[in-house]
């Protein structure tokens, strides 16, 4: 496999974590434009833990996921009281606040004579754990996809369980769910924490793939894309967001047909799909149809 293919596939895998995180909130009835903030929390936390404190990547990833979960839980406490567009705007504001905090964040330490760590707008260089361990790009691609498979398996398990039904119930009709005895606020806070952890895991993997992160990486564009991937791919199954990522990065970018104009095509595609299939390509009806056809 050549460097380009490995790069495209790694990016597809990395951004899938973010798309899955947006999807998790969408099925619980909340549209977040701010998942990039928790992706950033994961990237910075994971980078600090490996590059400055010398933690191994698996431990750093767990630490970063815990921090991502805590961060989104804390953001969720006040914002999940809001509904619809108000919640979406609140998440966008929280993400912008996080990005500005990354710009103000300076935490550099000398490692082997070199200043390593977040340096405000100059970014965070020297996240070299993967290089130091001699992990080749193809091997790292394997790590990313192994973790993605684990995340997907968890999603599929949850979706087939009582918890999955509760989540969809809360997402579709929170009043009815509450009348049936579901603690809607608690469920949504749990979902927010899980979505934060998932985004943070993507962030840790991204930072170690790139060896460098900066506040601009966690701009609103990343949040819009992750949400768009979930909406394009569909809300009927966890495979939906992955399909969304594949359509954009895999097909549009990978084929390079629309060289230079991809973003315009992508925007048009999102608009068309939202009119034609408001719940995405793999929506609940399509998933039901596929299940009947192949069972």
């Amino acid at each position: 496999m050549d460097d380009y293919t490995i790069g495209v596939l790694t990016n597809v895998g990395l951004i899938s974590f973010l798309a899955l995180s947006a999807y998790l909130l969408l099925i619980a009835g909340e549209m977040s434009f701010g998942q990039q903030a928790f992706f950033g929390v994961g990237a910075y936390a994971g980078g600090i833990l490996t590059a400055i404190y010398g933690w191994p990547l698996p431990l750093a990833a767990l630490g970063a996921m815990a921090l991502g979960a805590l961060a989104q839980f804390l953001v969720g406490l006040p914002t999940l009281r809001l509904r619809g567009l108000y919640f979406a705007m609140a998440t966008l504001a929280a993400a912008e606040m996080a990005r500005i905090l990354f710009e103000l964040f300076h935490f550099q330490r000398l490692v082997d004579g070199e200043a390593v760590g977040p340096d405000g707008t100059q970014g965070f260089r020297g996240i070299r754990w993967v290089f130091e361990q001699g992990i080749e790009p193809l091997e790292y691609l394997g790590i990313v996809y192994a973790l993605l498979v684990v995340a997907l398996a968890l999603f599929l398990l949850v979706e087939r369980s009582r918890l999955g039904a509760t989540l969809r119930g809360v997402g579709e009709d929170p009043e009815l769910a509450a009348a049936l005895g579901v603690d809607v606020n608690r469920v949504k806070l749990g979902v927010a924490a899980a979505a934060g952890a998932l985004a943070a895991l993507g962030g840790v993997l991204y930072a170690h793939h790139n060896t460098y992160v900066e506040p601009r990486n966690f701009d609103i564009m990343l949040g819009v894309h992750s949400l768009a991937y979930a909406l394009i791919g569909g809300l009927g199954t966890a495979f939906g967001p992955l399909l969304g990522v594949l359509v954009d990065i895999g097909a549009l970018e990978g084929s390079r047909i629309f060289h230079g104009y991809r973003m315009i095509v992508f925007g048009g595609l999102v608009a068309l799909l939202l009119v034609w299939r408001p719940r995405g390509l793999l929506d609940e009806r399509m998933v039901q149809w596929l299940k009947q056809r192949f069972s």
Partner: protein
Amino acid sequence: MAKAALFLTLALLPGFALAQTPKADLQCKGTGTDFVYDCTIRLSRGGKPLEGVQVTMGADMPSMPMAHNVKPVKAQPAKAPGEYKAKLDLEMLGVWAVKLRLAGPVRDQLILHYEFDSKGATPARR
């Protein structure tokens, strides 16, 4: 005497490590074809030109990470020591994080921020 030698070694270690970190300088000129640039990379380590390195050059847009996958190109050694040449084919103008992946005698990845316009590239203001 042994203590002094140990102290001296420890004192010099950070400087030694710093000297081992490769540095890169980049100059890119537009080719006349949209978004295609002829680039010259100058690699050094400890102030000396770094030769015999396999350099692969790629790029990512900091404001849209992972959304652009520029095809990485292998740079070819030029005449001057530590100098390498490559053609970079971007997707649009603007600030790009140029990634230089080094292999061979040195294994590293260097990230350089440059603003690309139709004429060429200048270090990005940040």
